[in-house]
């Protein structure tokens, strides 16, 4: 009887201990889901507030209750002035029009200096086209494994999913040195020109010089690579598609394997930098601890500074000893009311608590130079 009771007690205790350990294992400080039960959208972890802390950070939960509110409602004009984005469905896209030919002229005047003729790009500036966009789109499966391989063509025509982005970007970001300077019509014209050099068709129609682009036609543009992206973020399931996408490591190359021994056969296959690689840096790499050389044309040190530091600074750094502090503009302006000659005379022959020449044996000329420095440094 006793034995079995004891067994039961042990079993219960064990069960309780197991239960405790299960509670411990369910770590409430870190989670794969948000409070609403949805998976963390980037595939990672979130750190809910638990016992007044999120991860290692304490927080005042009362501070985040929503009772604090500042600011004011913007006027409709204010919102209109700042709401500059253009969305794929045409939200934010104004009425207006411009022809390919007009776009060509504006391009020559304002864009070609960086993007070169016909948007060919160069000197680091992006190309706006690399030929027919529909053909270019087909290169997106290209991988440069071998030195002679052609890469994928990543430009507006072959790659961008939406034309709205181009309209928005040209008007608010271009020309690079003078953004926000193009009218709606000029923007339509430049968009028309960019579509034409990419040989993009609207409703089956090629954009020749006379083609006039307007809002209605613009909204019919279907970019060649419209379906070239994942996860699918449009529509009512956009967010959920992203959550699912990042929940699967295979989609983005996530690895969960941790090999510790003999992780590959034989000696390592090594890829090295070809030649000197990219090694022109500004400034050049150096880990020396050295003072930079004074720049050419920089101001030379005042000839009185060194002697001042050695002989006068102890009293004149602050006004604690009754001396006018170097750097104290007002004090020196007041002293100089007596005239520069008198100030220098006082420095050489002494005044109040200051001994002649501050107790040094410096020459009169040197003392005069020091005074010049002190005045210069107090301007």
């Amino acid at each position, binding site marked *: 009887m006793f034995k079995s009771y004891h067994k039961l007690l042990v079993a219960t205790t064990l069960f309780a201990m197991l239960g405790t350990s299960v509670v411990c294992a369910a770590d409430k400080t*870190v989670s794969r889901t948000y409070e609403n039960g*949805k998976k*963390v959208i*980037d595939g*990672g972890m*979130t*750190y809910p507030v638990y016992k007044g802390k999120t*991860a290692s950070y304490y927080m005042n939960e009362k501070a985040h209750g*929503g009772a604090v509110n*500042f600011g004011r*409602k*913007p006027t409709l004009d*204010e919102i209109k002035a*700042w*709401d500059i*984005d253009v*969305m794929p469905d045409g939200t934010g896209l104004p009425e207006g029009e411009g022809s390919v030919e007009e776009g060509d002229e504006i391009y020559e005047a304002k864009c070609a200096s*960086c993007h070169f003729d016909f948007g060919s790009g160069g000197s*680091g500036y992006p190309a706006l086209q690399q030929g027919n966009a529909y053909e270019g789109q087909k290169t997106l*499966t*290209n*991988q*440069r494994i071998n030195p002679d391989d052609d890469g*994928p063509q*990543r430009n507006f025509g072959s*790659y961008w999913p939406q034309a709205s*982005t181009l309209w928005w970007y040209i008007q608010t*970001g271009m020309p690079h040195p003078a*953004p926000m300077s193009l009218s709606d019509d000029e923007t339509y014209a430049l968009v028309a020109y960019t579509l034409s050099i990419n040989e993009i068709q609207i409703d089956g129609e090629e954009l020749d010089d006379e083609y006039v682009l307007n809002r209605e036609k613009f909204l019919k543009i279907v970019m060649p690579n419209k379906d070239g*992206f994942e996860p699918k*973020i*449009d529509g009512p399931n*956009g*967010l959920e598609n*992203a959550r699912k996408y990042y929940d699967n490591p295979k989609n*983005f*190359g996530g*690895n969960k*394997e941790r090999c*510790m021994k003999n992780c*590959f056969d034989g000696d*390592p*296959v090594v890829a*090295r*930098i070809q030649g000197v*690689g*990219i*090694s*022109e*840096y*500004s400034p050049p*790499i150096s880990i*020396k*601890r*050295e003072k930079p050389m004074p720049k050419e044309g920089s101001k030379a040190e005042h000839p009185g500074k060194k002697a001042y530091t050695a002989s006068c600074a*102890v009293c004149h*750094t602050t006004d604690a000893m009754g001396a006018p502090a170097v750097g104290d503009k007002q004090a020196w302006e007041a002293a100089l009311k007596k005239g520069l000659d008198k100030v220098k005379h006082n420095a050489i022959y002494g005044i109040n608590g200051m*001994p002649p020449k501050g*107790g*040094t044996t410096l020459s009169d000329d040197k003392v005069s130079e020091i005074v010049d420095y002190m005045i210069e440094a107090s301007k």
Partner: protein
Amino acid sequence: MNKAVTVSQEDEVLSEIQEQSGRRKFFKKTAAYSMSALAASSVLMPVKIKAEKHHGQGDPAILEEQVWGTTFGYPVTHNLYGLPSPYESNVTRRTTELLSSGNMYASIAVSPIHELSGIITPNGLFFNRCHGGTAEIDYNKHRLMIHGLVEKPLVLTMDELKRYPSVSRIHFIECPANGGPEWRNPQFPSIQFAKGFMSCAEWTGVYIKDILKDLGLKPEAKWMLAEGMDNSHMGRTVPIDKVLDDAMIVWGQNGEALRPEQGYPIRLLLPGWEGNLMVKWLGRLEFASEPFYAKEETAKYTALKPSGKAIQHFYANEVNSVITSPCPEKPWSDLKKGDVVEIEGLAWSGMGTIKGVDISLDGGKNWKEASLKGLVLPQAWTRFSFIYKYEGKALFLSSRARDDAGYVQPSVKQERDAVGVEGVYHRNGIHTWEVTANGEVKNVQILS
């Protein structure tokens, strides 16, 4: 890093020593000359001449008086906003024309991560990527507007914004193209350029969700546009999940105001996510039911896979690490066989917290666990350390981090097999340094 360079460096050091001792002689003379004069002034202490106490056997840095020990330093009125020692002048951001889009207004200046200690990047060394130059915004003329699918749109001055309860967090910001130029082959004989498109700081600001509590987010609001007020008017689309989790608007960086290079007066902070998403010079947040398709969500900041499909809206920078000592800039050429040396580095994950780091001395064939050290925080740089007895032999030195989301850094081969070589962004394959027998360090990739 060849012998010729080393010899010329020695020459320079020698000539510097000679020059210094010349200066010292001059200084001693000056000091002796002014001795009697100085004695007249009771406030001045006589200069001690160490030379009387020894016979010149030893390091002049110890035996000789130094200028800084025998004269005044700068008064406290000097450099009221402090600057680093001029002797640290080589610790600086760096650029290369090959990383610019035509000019230095749309370019990047990278962080000298080999010179940093701990997990905080000083503000002047924080990497800077901009698309239309570093804007210098007038604090008094800057506004934050929140509108779109909210019950009550809002506009805030900067003073008003800073009235909200603040939070401070330590997070890295990493350009998703960090390491991106090396998808197909190592390119940079430098850690600063190979891995320095990132930095880490303590940020202070407000949770966006705290401001939204007052505005009333409409249920159909799914995406937020964040837009900068600089020349590029750069916008990015953020899913509402992040906005309501830990997204912040920050004005403080390591205890002071954001630097202009980091978006003064305010920037968006999305812990762990692509640096490009954390819009600088932030002026406008707009909520919508559909994504915005901003310019940096097209041919840029999307990752092309061999299937021809590109990952758009690629949010978190995945688990990653790099050994910062040794590295090409800080080689082991001064070590002797038998020296015990610390292998040190940085690990980080935008998906969570670093759980551990492994070290390999043979290019990733066999691994040993390193120690973490210091603070270990979510979406923050984490230091790791491994003590090694230097044998004077060639090594392939690799690090491999893992995070609490369960992710482990892939080998270069695993990563290429999974997503090809044309992704440009989000490259987190294991980084390897080749340490040669004479201690030089080279940037390599192991393809096994």
